[in-house]
């Protein structure tokens, strides 16, 4: 059945995120603003103030307190939403590890922005990758529509008794946060059926019944079992994602899988990408195909748990694969590259060529020429990588700036 009432609005990714929280009928939003996330909490603040949303919106003193408040509120049995970005999410990182260990369901949006130093406002994924090992489920959005849909899916995953974990939905700053495109808003009543009010299965904090949770465990043995349990719960999220996504597709007509294949069937060269730049990748695939190059794209949507089998099934049988990381681990390279490589290692029919590519840092554009260059480097068997994308004009410009900053004839 497809939703009866269709209401399409031109929304920014930030507004779509706010709509996601509104349609999910969240009870509590602890907030702290940061560019490029501010529009989300600003919008929610207004909706709570007007009475459009019922519940409590609180401005916190920092992201650290914000995540602590979010986790505590979720432990009291209410539905919680929050959002951050970049330096902000890093400031609260300690609490992310902590609240995921509390096994409390909530949804948080990260609006990706490159990390200092140097400081910038535009996106890359080093911020969200820093939260990779917090034991929080992660979904990465490509379009404003996906932002809204993934938030609704995220609540179902978070609150599922097999999971009970925070879920993070990642959206790129600027390229999604401030970009307006048509977004179909699902009917509120339909959403209520898909996502009924949160009914916790575990005992919750109540003032009348004091209890202790998350106390210290020394000695390592019990600690390890907590961590193993956490790992298993996170793994469960993949199956739960598939179940709820199927239900969502049947109800609202938009179908999501843990990975998305774009023109992969006969592809010789495959780009692996995630988030909003995947749209650029799809455009490049179309253009390369017009030039007779059989290109395809695999988009990562569910990033934690890492859908090992889905990734391997999609990539095996293809000759050449380039993993484009919009992040950099200095001294190691791209962060998702080794994850893809390890997903493929045990498969006999794994791609013959696997290339690590780094690009789009701090929102630097990835252009058609870059994709062509990736295809060419896939054929250079001796090139080990990672391939760092840049254009000569930009390097010349950068050198000019260096000269202005400190004229030094000797420097290269």
């Amino acid at each position: 059945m497809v939703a009866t009432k269709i209401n399409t609005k031109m929304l920014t990714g930030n507004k779509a995120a706010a709509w996601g929280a509104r349609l999910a009928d969240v009870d509590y939003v602890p907030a702290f603003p940061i560019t490029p996330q501010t529009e989300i909490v600003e919008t929610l603040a207004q909706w709570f103030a007007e009475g459009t949303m019922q519940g409590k919106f609180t401005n916190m003193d920092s992201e650290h307190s914000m995540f602590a408040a979010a986790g505590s509120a979720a432990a009291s049995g209410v539905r919680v939403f929050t959002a951050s970005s970049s330096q902000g999410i890093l400031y609260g990182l300690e609490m992310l590890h902590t609240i995921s260990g509390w096994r409390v369901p909530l949804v948080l949006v990260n609006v990706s922005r490159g990390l200092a130093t140097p400081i910038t406002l535009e996106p890359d994924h080093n911020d969200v990758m820093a939260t990779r090992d917090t034991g929080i489920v992660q979904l990465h959005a490509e379009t404003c529509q996906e932002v809204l849909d993934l938030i609704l899916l995220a609540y179902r995953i978070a609150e599922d008794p097999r999971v009970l974990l925070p879920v993070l939905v990642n959206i790129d700053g600027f390229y999604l946060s401030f970009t307006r495109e048509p977004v179909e808003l699902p009917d509120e009543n339909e959403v209520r059926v898909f996502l009924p009010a949160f009914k916790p299965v575990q005992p919750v904090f109540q003032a009348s019944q004091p209890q202790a949770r998350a106390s210290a465990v020394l000695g390592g043995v019990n600690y390890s079992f907590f961590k193993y349990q956490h790992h298993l719960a996170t793994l469960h999220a993949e199956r739960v994602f598939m179940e709820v996504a199927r239900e969502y597709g049947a109800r609202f007509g938009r179908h999501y899988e843990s990975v998305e294949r774009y023109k992969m069937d006969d592809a010789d060269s495959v780009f692996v990408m995630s988030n909003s730049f995947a749209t650029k990748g799809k455009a490049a695939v179309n253009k390369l195909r017009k030039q007779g190059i059989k290109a395809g794209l695999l988009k990562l949507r569910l990033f934690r748990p890492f859908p090992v089998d889905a990734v391997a099934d999609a990539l095996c049988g293809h000759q050449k694969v380039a993993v484009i990381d919009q992040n950099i681990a200095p001294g190691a390279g791209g962060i998702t590259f080794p994850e893809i490589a390890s997903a493929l290692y045990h498969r006999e029919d794994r791609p013959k060529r696997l290339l690590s590519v780094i690009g789009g840092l701090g929102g630097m554009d990835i252009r058609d020429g870059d994709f062509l260059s990736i295809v060419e480097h896939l054929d250079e068997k001796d090139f080990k990588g990672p391939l760092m994308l840049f254009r000569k004009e930009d390097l010349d410009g950068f050198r000019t700036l260096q000269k202005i900053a400190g004229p030094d004839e000797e420097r290269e």
Partner: protein
Amino acid sequence: MFKRINIRISGLGGQGAVTAAHLLAMAANRDGKYSISNPFFGAEKRMAPAESYVRIGVERIYDRGELVYPDVIMVFHPQVITMQKSYTAPFYSGVKEDGLVIINTSADLLTKEDHKRLEDLNVSVFNHDATKLALEIGGTELSTNMAMLGACAGVTKIVSLEALDGALQERFGKRYVASGGTATLDQAITKKYAKKAMLLKANMDTITKSYELADTWSEEAKPALANVAADVARSF
């Protein structure tokens, strides 16, 4: 045959370059076209360079972010050119052949070299005194962005006036809701909404007048993009 128009708006913080892009994209969507808009800015402060981009087409748009090769460039403030307050220098870099440049100015701001380079690309330049028009009709220079929108639509017909009106109402028009409080409060709210309705009308008048002026200019100057999307609206 019209497939896609890429519009780059260069302005200064506070002029509504981002809002203008949003309204254009919304209007295009109302006309049944595909559209996507996004801004680029650094520090969010008045008079700092601010850019925005709109892509409007008849096919799904697999493109986002900075617009490097625009068909239409709108310059909202003379300082974009005279003081190079712009992320792209010169302001017309990347402009496509047969393109269109609309500048908010009463005087010619381009050098001989600029003119030559634009002529070589068959790019038409429309000097449009948008701020003057905004002050005359809207009574505030804050309507400059409306005058620029009207000009873009008047030359290219990329969006209809009806769709612009609809977009304006959707973005700024709010239906009056009784506060449920005291009568005095309700009265204050009614007044506020009445003022808003007047502002909306002034903005739409600015757009319409600008549209007409641009249409007239277009008939004489015959830019390559004149009426490029005139017959496309709702045709698919």
